């Protein structure tokens, strides 16, 4: 631990590979150190998910966004065009457009909530010992992040250009929840109904 350890004559090389190697280790080492400090400062994670996850247990079968029946109608601009064609009804057309815009935004928010709820619920199940695999977990995470990004993009487009700008993409947003639901279904399918009731009871009990 003292200077006597420096028995070799170090030649501080300017070799590119070695330099890149050393810079890589320095940056990554410091980044990792920062991560550990961050985790230490954050404190211990909660042993159980929050109350919204508890809600997921009871709401998982009745997902709000997915159960909305009139997505096609909501994003269909036929009524709007018909109203616009009559100069006297243009104001009404504008109001219709605004109403539809608000409804579409609410619907997208619900879909996002559904996705997050499904994801949390899945995590909960895996934590409780329901069998899964690493690749399955990674696929779910990938599906979730892509879906959330796409939904956020659709929200932005609705805000900027109105509800009729990207009707097809918006309608297809519902399919994202489907794919997440299928992933969750795979996991849920590994638990018996009796086991599920027990999970819900213990979860609610712990959260109380």
């Amino acid at each position, binding site marked *: *631990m*003292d*200077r*006597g*350890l*420096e*028995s*070799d*004559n*170090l030649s*501080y*090389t300017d*070799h590119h*590979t*070695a330099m890149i*190697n*050393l810079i*890589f*280790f*320095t940056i*990554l*080492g*410091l980044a*990792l*150190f920062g991560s*550990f400090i961050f*985790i*230490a400062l954050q404190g*211990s*994670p*909660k*042993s159980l*998910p929050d109350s919204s996850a508890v809600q997921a247990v009871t709401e998982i*079968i009745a997902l709000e966004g*997915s*159960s*909305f*029946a009139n997505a096609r109608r909501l994003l269909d601009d036929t009524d709007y065009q018909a109203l616009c064609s009559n100069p006297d009804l243009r104001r009404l057309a504008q109001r219709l457009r605004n109403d539809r815009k608000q409804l579409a935004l609410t619907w997208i928010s619900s879909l996002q909530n559904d996705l997050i709820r499904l994801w949390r619920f899945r*995590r*909960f199940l*895996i*934590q*409780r*010992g*329901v*069998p*899964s*695999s*690493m690749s399955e*977990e990674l696929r779910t995470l990938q599906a979730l992040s892509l879906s959330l990004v796409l939904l956020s993009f659709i929200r932005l487009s609705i805000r900027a250009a109105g509800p009729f700008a990207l009707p097809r993409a918006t309608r297809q947003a519902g399919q994202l*929840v*489907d794919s997440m639901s299928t992933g969750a279904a795979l996991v*849920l*399918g590994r638990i*018996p*109904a009796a*086991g*599920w009731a*027990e*999970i819900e009871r213990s979860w609610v009990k712990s959260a109380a």
Partner: protein
Amino acid sequence: MFLSGAICVAAVSLELATLLLLVSKGVWRSYRLFFVYATWLFLANSAILVTFLYLPADSHTVNWASRVYPALYWNIDSIDVVLRFVVVWEVFHQIFPKSSGLNKSLSKGLAIVAFALLVVACGTFLIYQNYTGPRSIHLALDRSFGLVQALMILGTMLMARYYGVRCGRNVRGIALAFGGWVSISTATNAMADLAGPFLPYWYYLRPLSFVVMIAVWIWALWVYEPNPPIMESEPVELGQWTEDWNRTISATRTIIRP
């Protein structure tokens, strides 16, 4: 010289305190692998301290006695690089016990990731061609595997956080202090090879951070607080639930895509 000696004495004293703490409270039974590693650290660093005091290295004279300390230091350091995996395994094993469903689900995937990380460690060690002597080789070995160990610990902690697995004070303290030390050690020893002027700081920064790690371990083990058990569900007869769920999904599909 004096500061190096003081750090060395502090490290050995704290290691002894850790061992006494583990034995006196009987905690060692719960953390056997960690206890093995702590014992190793105490014995190895005691040997280093004794050599440092009685056979100090001297760069001006070339005789067998002056070579003992550097050789012992670097060889012990290299053995330590391998033994550190014991701590990684202990942390993983404590957070995801073998009997838990999480372990059963993820162990195969994590084993592949761990193997890949080991290959990366070996690769980065072999790629670095500028070894000018034993010191340089040991430093490269230390940082290549240190980085991987830090990543493994961080991955385990993040995975626990992701699944809401609660870590007790003992494991959390051991893991965070160890991860922090291994990562700072990786960075400082890369800097020592990268920039000559940093070398004097490296001589103190690495052992000082080691002393801090042992101090945090003592704090973590002061109160016995193991990880709370993971509540498990019984995966039996899945038929009815699968049927109900599939019915719901198909209903949702029909609503979204009429």
